[in-house]
């Protein structure tokens, strides 16, 4: 499976500011001072290999949208945040608007940051496309219709040329959808959210965002350990620090890097990818949290190693 992250930001899409870009350029030029970089390829190599990611790149600011590519003709997406806009354009550019396609979407929940990309999802505007929106919430269709309704959006839902279907999934049950095995799990979040465990070709990827954990509740913890068990990759809501998550932001519905590492250690997960970044955090902050989390995994490691990364818009992980 190839996982492509189209949107990784939590709660609200953000953009790097003019000042942020300038700071990166100043840092990059400082790092390059005295270096004999003459050709484009020398500079490219320097940027790629020697500059820290947070200086040479950005984590991006689109809200949640992750593609699960199993090499099939159908497309699979988790959530329709603003990252879905880029995905839609990418698909249209790749296959051309004339070729119809089927898009399966798995919705964690219907908070705005997870649906707001749909009005700008190009495949919905092309007749012949089929979009199947899967989820465990009873009011899934209603929420999507409401988002398209006046006075908030000019194109009514019923005028979208693509064929759009809604499929209700049962949590805790294993479903087979277009060749992909999917098991949803109920998570703690305002209005409920669902994580998805995807299995294909002997590989397991878990998408678990907008999910609060109660670390001292052994039963809930064990439920997530079972859900994550032996996964090759877990995409995990690590929006807050633990201190915030269990105090001022308790019951806000999100989790922390610490809980992510612990659950992945207990479940013997191979790779933890932190996701749903706090909008307030800039690239340097997200990079420093990543560094700390890598360190936490090292100092608390038993006989199992968990690889740690932090998702960015445009990132790809192959499992």
């Amino acid at each position, binding site marked *: 499976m190839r996982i492509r992250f189209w949107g990784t930001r939590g709660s609200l899409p953000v953009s790097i500011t003019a000042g942020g870009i300038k700071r990166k350029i100043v840092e990059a030029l400082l790092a390059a001072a005295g270096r004999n970089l003459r050709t484009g390829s020398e500079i490219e190599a320097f940027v790629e290999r020697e500059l820290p990611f947070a200086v040479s790149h950005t984590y991006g600011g689109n809200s949640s949208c992750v593609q699960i590519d199993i090499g099939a003709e159908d497309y699979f997406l988790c959530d329709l945040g603003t990252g879905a806009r880029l995905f839609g354009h990418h698909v249209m550019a790749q296959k051309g608007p004339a070729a119809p396609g089927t898009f399966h979407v798995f919705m964690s929940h219907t908070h705005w940051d997870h649906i707001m990309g749909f009005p700008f999802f190009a495949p919905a505007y092309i007749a012949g496309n089929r979009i199947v929106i899967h989820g465990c919430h009873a009011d899934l269709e209603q929420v999507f219709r409401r988002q398209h309704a006046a006075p908030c959006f000019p194109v009514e839902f019923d005028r979208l040329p693509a064929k759009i279907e809604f499929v209700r999934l049962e949590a805790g049950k294993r479903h087979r959808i277009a060749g992909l095995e999917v098991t949803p799990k109920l998570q703690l979040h305002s209005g409920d959210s669902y994580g998805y465990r995807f299995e294909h070709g002997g590989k397991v990827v878990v998408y678990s965002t907008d999910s609060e*954990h*109660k*670390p*001292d*509740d*052994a039963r809930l*913890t064990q439920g997530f350990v079972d859900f994550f068990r032996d996964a090759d990759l877990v995409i995990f809501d690590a929006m807050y*620090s*633990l*201190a*915030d998550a*269990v*105090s001022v932001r308790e019951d806000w519905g999100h989790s*922390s*890097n*610490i*809980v992510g590492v*612990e659950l992945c250690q207990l479940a013997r997960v191979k790779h933890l990818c932190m996701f749903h970044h706090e909008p307030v955090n800039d690239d340097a902050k997200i990079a420093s949290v990543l560094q*700390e*989390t890598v*360190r*936490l995994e090292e*100092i*608390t490691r038993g006989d199992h190693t968990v690889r740690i990364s932090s998702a960015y818009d445009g990132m790809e992980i192959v499992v």
Partner: protein
Amino acid sequence: MLVTTKRYADVLVVAAAGRIDYQNADEFKAALMPHLENCGAGRDQVVLDLSQLDYISSAGLRVLMIAAKEVRARQGKLLAVTLQPVVREIFEISRFTLVFDIFDSVQEALAKISPLALAAYESKSP
């Protein structure tokens, strides 16, 4: 996991030892909370001695957060002392360093909050 206490004048030193994780966090909570009942402004102050604590997970940290809130609600003080390097890093990464005043020794903490307790401590441990 083991919780023991020692009193020095108006300060109760609560020592937690071993490992605290999601499986014994409840036990830790049950062992810790009764010691906070007498704390408050003009009454007991509590110092958490973590010198024998080898590991603490988010579950244990959540108990410490509950303890800190409880003590704060009573206008008391809860200090943490002598964190082992691993526990110290866990506190830093989880941002619990912002929740607790952390000192390098029991003596240092007592010096900060109670001269009486410091005198009692120094007379007991020459």
